[in-house]
């Protein structure tokens, strides 16, 4: 199998993310499946940023601990990655900044000769990489024409100079003719929400979902979408509920710290039955933690967030395709069942770039939202119904006062402390939970992959799915991935683990949050492989850890 890893390193501000992405596009044009991991510290200029762009002829979503090509824009890019460099590694570096073995490119001189800004150094770099990897220049030209919005001709001249300044070292064959859209998880969540009918997005910047805010703000002109960045996450959540109350399908985005501030509004959504979707991008906690690194430590937080008991939908997509599909589903179901929903993701999925399979965009139809019956008489926002869902109307509605309430309330939405009404409304919310469960039961809430009949399975959730799939294949294991966590798909999970003797949980948390949840539902999980340093599993690391326990 063709399996190539390219490490691109430099300082923050060098545009390393863009360089890694352009390399992914080169592979994409060569017919490869790609995945790009972006590793950066929490600073604006300096430090050490790197990307690992991986390409293979089958679908991938994890990085390897190897480096076939190293593109160094800083000395650190070589010095800090010596463990990955072998005799076979092709090293290209900016000779103005870096000393080392390999081929130097006079990036600064080339840019100076063309009177080009520093940002165009990326074009020089990918030109050089293409030559070293035996990628024809017309592929470089295609990528620059498609992916660089400004000054294409100048970028092409610079790329050509980079191309001509090195020699071919290790040739990469063409892998096929398929060329996929390359997107990061944030973009796919945004597109999924738009597919589900998103009207408004409200967020305060916070890694790893800031780029979702940027993406949606960028497309708000072309889609019928309003994007607002208010004073803090408390305002974000309450503003979103205002939008929803007035009939606009609304989502918010944040990470754990921001979601802490949102929980009072989250509980208000539960009480008032005003729907909202929260995109919760996990990063390494607790507290500020590692702002730009990953983790899976907030599963229990989102399952329990907010005072009181109320139904909620929690989904945790694990692949770019699932990010798209389940974001749409989450928004639709939040509205259909009038509940708050959480799309639980993490830095790896949010900021990783993937080859997106656009043949896997089919979103299951969740049906229509309940409408009031014409003979119902005076509109009451919390009318008692069989399934607990009261038809939702929005102001202005002629001859009606639409009242929603954070307090215990009666059918008309007026505060009450009467025991019988409090009981009725609590039961109504419980019936809504059943209605939501009925909806999710018709969906594939638990996915299984890999060798059928295998007695060992990896149990994973969220972004660890793709590394688990790849490693499980090597071992001949099955993979079981719950996607929906609330309502918990106990029956589907039981079915998925039937016949499994050794269920190994793979989670990026210390306490084994999914494992504990399974135990709570009487599903035994044997061992637990944890990853606690804020970095996602590499294929090699998970493979080695698995050998220790299986």
């Amino acid at each position, binding site marked *: 199998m063709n399996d190539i890893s390219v490490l691109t390193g430099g300082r923050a501000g060098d545009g390393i993310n863009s360089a890694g992405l352009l390399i992914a596009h080169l592979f994409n044009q060569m017919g490869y499946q790609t995945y790009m991991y972006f590793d950066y510290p929490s600073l604006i200029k300096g430090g050490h940023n790197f990307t690992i762009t991986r390409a293979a002829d089958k679908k991938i979503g994890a990085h390897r601990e190897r480096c076939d090509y190293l593109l160094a824009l800083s000395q650190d890019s070589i010095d800090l990655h010596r463990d990955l460099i072998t005799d076979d590694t092709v090293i290209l570096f900016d000779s103005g900044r870096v000393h080392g073995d390999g081929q130097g490119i006079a990036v600064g001189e080339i840019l100076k000769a063309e009177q080009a800004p520093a940002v165009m150094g990326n074009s020089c770099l990918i030109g050089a990489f293409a030559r070293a990897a035996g990628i024809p220049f017309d592929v470089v030209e295609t990528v620059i024409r498609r992916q660089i919005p400004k000054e294409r001709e100048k970028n092409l001249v610079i790329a050509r100079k980079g191309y001509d300044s090195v020699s071919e070292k290790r040739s990469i064959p063409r892998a096929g003719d398929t060329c996929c859209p390359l997107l990061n998880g944030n973009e796919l969540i945004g597109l999924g929400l738009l597919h589900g009918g998103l009207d408004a997005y409200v967020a305060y910047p916070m890694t790893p979902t800031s780029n979702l805010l940027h993406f949606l703000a960028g497309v708000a002109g072309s889609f019928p979408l309003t994007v607002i960045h208010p004073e803090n996450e408390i*305002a974000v959540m309450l503003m979103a509920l205002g939008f929803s*109350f007035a009939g606009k399908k609304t989502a918010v985005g944040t990470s754990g710290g921001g979601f802490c501030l949102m929980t009072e509004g989250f509980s208000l959504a539960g009480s008032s039955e005003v729907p909202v979707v929260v995109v919760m991008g996990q990063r390494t906690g607790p507290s500020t933690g590692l702002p730009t690194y990953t983790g899976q430590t907030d599963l229990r937080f989102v399952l329990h967030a907010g005072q009181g008991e109320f139904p909620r939908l929690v989904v945790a997509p694990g692949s770019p395709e699932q990010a798209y599909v389940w974001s749409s589903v989450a928004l639709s179901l939040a509205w259909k069942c009038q509940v708050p929903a959480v799309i639980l993701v993490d830095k790896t999925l949010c900021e990783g770039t993937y080859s*997106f399979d656009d043949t896997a965009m089919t979103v299951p139809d969740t049906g229509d939202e309940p409408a009031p019956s014409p003979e119902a008489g005076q509109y009451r926002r919390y009318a008692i119904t069989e399934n607990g869902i009261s038809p939702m109307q929005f102001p202005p509605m002629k001859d009606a006062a639409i009242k929603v309430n954070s307090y215990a309330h009666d059918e008309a939405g007026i505060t009450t402390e009467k025991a019988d009404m409090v009981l009725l409304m609590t039961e109504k919310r419980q019936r809504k939970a059943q209605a939501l469960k009925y909806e999710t039961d018709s969906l594939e809430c638990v996915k299984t992959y890999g060798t059928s009949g295998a007695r060992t399975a990896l149990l994973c959730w969220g972004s660890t799915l793709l590394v688990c799939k790849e490693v499980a294949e090597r071992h001949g294991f099955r993979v079981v991935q719950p996607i929906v966590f609330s309502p918990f798909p106990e029956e589907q999970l039981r079915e998925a683990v039937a016949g499994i003797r050794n269920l190994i949980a793979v989670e990026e948390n210390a306490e084994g949050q999914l494992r504990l949840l399974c135990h709570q539902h009487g599903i035994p999980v044997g061992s637990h492989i944890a990853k606690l340093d804020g970095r996602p599993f590499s294929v090699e690391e998970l493979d080695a850890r698995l050998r220790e326990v299986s």
Partner: protein
Amino acid sequence: MPSKDLITTAQNTWCPGCGNFTLQFALRNAIKGLVADGVPLENIVLVTGIGCHAKIGDYLDINSFYSIHGRTIPVATGIKLANPDLTVICCAGDGDAYAEGLDHLIFGAKRNTDITVIVHNNRVYGLTTGQYTPTSPLGFRGRSTPQGTSEAPFNPISLMLASGAGFVARSTTRKMPHLSGIIGQALRHRGFSFVDVLQICASYFNVSELYDRQGYELSGHDPADFQAACRKAEEWDYNSDAPIAFGLLYKEEKPVFEEHFSRHSPSSVSREEQIRAFLETKR
């Protein structure tokens, strides 16, 4: 069908003599005035916080969002942005607007969203039984400060002027026609309107005598003059025995926040097609 007097059948639980009664009827009358001007009643939405004041959401028979403590303004902002045709009113307490949700008040003024914020400023926490608020006088003895507070109140009028509010007014529940008139003007002002209502709390802070003695209605004041408004605002610091001006202190028309967001007309292209077209740019 909302009742003719716009009052619901919910049992009223304010204390006898509570200033909220006056405020409720003043607001009701101002709303009736708007409706008489042609604003459909169903286009009016009331957002309340939590506290004695907020029960007005139960009592007025209009659309309402009975939200949580301190959060009226972001809710109202969302509603207004979602549908600029709605008239959105916030009734907030002084604990709501000046303590728990002060940031939202400042940002509401800064954004200049076209909403009206009425602060039921009784200068005490009533529903939680008598603690000091940001506008209680220095030395206020409440159950959380039995020795008296050691912090002076802040001046919400000055704060709103500094924050860019385009409509800043003060009234009192001691003067119902004045109050109703000011609220009516606030509702008609295009932009963020702020009304500080000095209201007595019959149970925990009854200073009717102070407001009757020191209060006066503005005359000869030019609400377009920002400097004059600032001077008027500083006349009484919410602590001393100085004269207390009631009326419109400042008014300025400026672009409203929601103008910056285009109203979207239905697209002939389906979302799915739009998404597919976007994906092509990423290939």
